[in-house]
């Protein structure tokens, strides 16, 4: 059985790249954001990575679930825009989140863990939803579902690798932490808008095609 794709595959691949890139950009900045309050000890990195992993795990689960219902370009774009919105507190309210935690929790391990939950859990979960949903959007035949999933992991992990490298080698040298975060937020919003735009084109094309205005 072959279904029509809602969005072009290349676009979905590109979006998976963007999400992978942004996840690691935010994660790499995590230690920089937390260290003034909880220090630069190994456990602070441990907290950040733990929370990112848990958030992604939950995101994968939920994203996969959501994809079983009628998948739509609108939902897909909302992941990006939602992740961008929920990343804003990292930029805007970091101090108000971390200060009371630091004051109330003596042990920097649990302090940094809690701060990571508040700052990173929601946006990272939403970013995690993108991967399984992308798979669903790219697959139109059962036989090649594994192939598409592999391609998607490849591209999003490539994005993650470059996000890690770019952030830790260059961005922190060129920009301030918040400027980099704004960059990630802007990229995510832009990605969401691009998806909406293409979804619209595809839908219009489909309607026109069905009415016979456009040659198949």
């Amino acid at each position, binding site marked *: 059985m072959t279904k029509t794709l809602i969005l072009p595959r290349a676009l979905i691949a590109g979006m998976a790249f963007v999400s992978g890139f942004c996840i690691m950009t935010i994660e790499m900045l995590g230690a920089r954001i937390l260290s003034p309050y909880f220090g630069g*000890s190994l456990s602070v990195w441990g907290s950040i990575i733990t929370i990112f992993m848990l958030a992604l795990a939950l995101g994968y689960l939920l994203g996969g679930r959501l994809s079983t219902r009628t998948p739509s370009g609108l939902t897909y774009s909302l992941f990006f825009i939602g992740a961008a919105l929920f990343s804003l507190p990292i930029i805007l309210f970091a101090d108000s989140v971390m200060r009371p935690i630091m004051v109330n929790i003596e042990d920097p391990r649990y302090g940094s863990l809690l701060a990571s939950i508040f700052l990173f859990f929601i946006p990272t979960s939403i970013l995690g939803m993108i991967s399984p949903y992308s798979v669903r959007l790219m697959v139109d035949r059962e036989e090649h579902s594994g192939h598409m999933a592999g391609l998607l992991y490849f591209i999003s992990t490539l994005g993650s690798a470059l996000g890690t490298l770019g952030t830790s080698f260059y961005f922190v*040298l060129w920009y301030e932490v918040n400027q980099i975060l704004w960059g990630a937020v802007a990229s995510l919003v832009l990605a969401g808008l691009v998806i909406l735009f293409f979804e619209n084109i595809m839908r219009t094309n489909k309607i026109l095609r069905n009415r016979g205005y456009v040659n198949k």
Partner: protein
Amino acid sequence: MLINRKKLIFGSLIQLLALALLSVSSYAETIHEERSKYRDITVTQTGERRCLLFNVHRGDRNQTCMMLDNPNRLVFDYTRMSFAGLMLQQAPQSILVIGLGGGSIPITFADLFPTAEIDVIEIDDAVVKVAKEYFQFNETQNMKVYVGDGRPFIKRAALRGNKYDYIVLDAFSGDYIPEHMLTREFLEEVKAIMTRDSVLVANTFSTSRLYDHESVTYQRAFGEFYNFKLPTSGNRIIIAQLGLLPPREELVEASRQLEASLDKYGVNITDYPRRLTTRADWDMSRRELTDQYSPGNLLRGN
């Protein structure tokens, strides 16, 4: 700049030569080795000279050395230089040392000021253990070690309203001072635990590629500060106070008063006043380091 560099190269050549001679003439025996959460720790002994080294495999230098037959004597220039702040604050009653190492700085403080409250912060509990086992460091009623990161400790101390008369910043991790302890915000937090009479002594490297950025940041936080270098040392000690710095004549006077008590540690304090300068020998156009912008070891003078 050129002369400076030449001097530097010459200086390091001499140091290398001395090192080579030393290693030929005497064999350093490793008496303890361990891999902690943060670093490889090695304790070596050459005759009566016992040294603490971090990350030997990467070629790091000695952190602390002590002469077993004369444990009072401070072996390194930078440890001796850390006491230059006494010229600005002669009788500290509360002392904060960030970074324990072999413990020679807090040990000396405890010896000099037995009634002073001394807090030491060390991130690596293995270093605390080694300092106690091999370098005669002991916690006492008045001297306590807290295992943890220096920055949150200072932040908390500020929230509690604690003040210290003498603060030594001597925290090093990996290549250099941790990035979050180089920023303007950090220095503002340090200022919050100082009074008008307090003195801050920060150990930095004069050859660091962060030298300019670091100097600009301290200058913005404290205004004028004393820059203290010795020709025999690659360290640059920053000495800062909240208010205006005392004039040099006062330092000369103070150093004379301190001379006798510091003699047994090998601190030649009367030589120090003329080495202290407020002259800015750094590029003042360099960017200040902040929590938002502190790429630490990525910066290479660009």
